């Protein structure tokens, strides 16, 4: 960020602070970066790491990797999820428990770019593409 941009950002922030609380409540919160810029495309499989094989065996017995790839959670939240899944039948050796949580919370933390899912095949692919071109 350039100096002028920082200044401008600071000024904007001050102005925002100066705005009355009631006005803030009435005005919708503009969510930055939620839809834009476009998310990074990830592969549809678990990323490499010492726990990749064990995560595959433990988790994908019941569901596909995509269920994991789309999550963006803190370590505390991942711990809760892993423990819930163990209760629900996921087989995780006690000695792998902490490493599995580290693997998941490192690769799928809240600061990672959003996962972009694929679509099912379109029955009218040509129509779909032309619509998208017009929209973008």
């Amino acid at each position, binding site marked *: 960020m350039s100096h002028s941009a920082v200044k401008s950002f600071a000024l904007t922030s001050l102005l925002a602070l100066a705005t009355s609380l009631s006005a803030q*409540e*009435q*005005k*919708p*919160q*503009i*969510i930055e970066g*939620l*839809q*834009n810029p*476009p998310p*990074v*495309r*990830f*592969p*549809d*499989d678990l*990323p*490499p790491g010492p726990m990749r094989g064990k995560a595959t065996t433990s988790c994908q*017995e*019941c*569901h*596909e990797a*995509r*269920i994991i790839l*789309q*999550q*963006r*959670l*803190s370590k505390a*939240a991942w711990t*809760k*999820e892993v423990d819930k899944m163990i*209760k*629900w*039948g*996921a087989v995780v050796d006690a000695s792998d428990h902490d490493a599995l949580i580290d693997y998941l919370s490192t*690769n799928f933390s*809240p*600061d*990672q*770019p*959003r*996962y972009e*899912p*694929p*679509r*099912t*095949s*379109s*029955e*009218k692919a040509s129509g*779909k593409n032309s*619509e998208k071109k017009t*929209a*973008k």
Partner: protein
Amino acid sequence: MNSRRNFLKQMSGAALAVGAAPSFLSSAFAGQSRSIDIPGEDDMIVRSFRFVDLETPVEYFNTWLTPVPHFFVRNHMHEPSELDPGTWQLTVGGEVEKPFTLNLSELSKLEVHSVVNTLECAGNGRSMHRPQVPGIQWGKGAVSTARFSGPRLRDVLQRAAVKPAGKHVMFRGLDEVPGKVPPFIRSIPIEKALDADTLVATHMNGTPLTKHHGFPARALVPGWIGAASCKWLTDIKVLDSEFVGNFMSPGYRFPNQPGKPGEVVKPEDTHPLTALSVKSVISGPLDGATLRSGKVSVHGAAWAGEADIVKVEISTDGGTSWKAAALGHEQSHYAWRLWSYDWKARSGDYTILSRATDSQGRTQPSTPVWNPSGYLYNAADQVKIHVA
């Protein structure tokens, strides 16, 4: 983060060379579209294909009734591996005088009633909550509208003669439960079960339910969260109290007093989810679109569970001023209203907002009501666009 990017670079050749990767995987690396074939499902966003969870892209919110191939799919478990209409049976029991079992042919002889209903997953919009919460990361499209038809649940229950002790009605379907996952069983209060619009639906938009939507029969609890409308229905049991199980508690509950984002909520301070909230979604222009200046139709859909939509307002200046949108003429009590607003767009960057108000006086909040499971997201919708 960097390691993932490096991985992508390193693997871009390797994955293609291996050749064992599924077709959609290799095409993803090549930067091409990576569509997945799921018969009967057209251009749907794949949140998961095992188990199947498919989201309707918002651009398909352009017809009052959603065609079945574009109707969102939510499964908690695996779909039944075998569904034989010849041997399928519906058992009605519990707190009733005359328990009985129906086959499909007997069910089809009961009087048919139709309800146009907007079905929405309680977790629709979950991905937009901050901090993020676990669960299927639905965008805006875990919602669709169809004309559901089938016998009234009330007629089925009356034939069984509910005892005075019967206060709740439990549904169970043929979902296949993996591991030690608790089965997907939920219940609704008897009043809702006896409502004239609550169905044992066998048809959707005039055709038999497809497998993804609960063939041969599903509960249809209009205006309520999708999870109430159990698919592949085989058991209806009248209970003297709410069903006790994971999908009633801790699942599908909402804080009595929503707190600050990220705050822990005690189970005793929650209640079961029932009817949907008031909500609108902009289906066009699409987020990120670049448009020519001039007349632009801002359009979308708005719904309110058991209430009616009375107003949809649009802001093209980030929420400073609001103008009324025109509501579509097609309407039915539990169905969404399509809406549109003609906007004379000049060059610039815009955040367009929509907010709906319903017959109960509820208006979409300006900020999301955060809750630990990310249910009922209904903040005013927004898209960012560029007008050239």
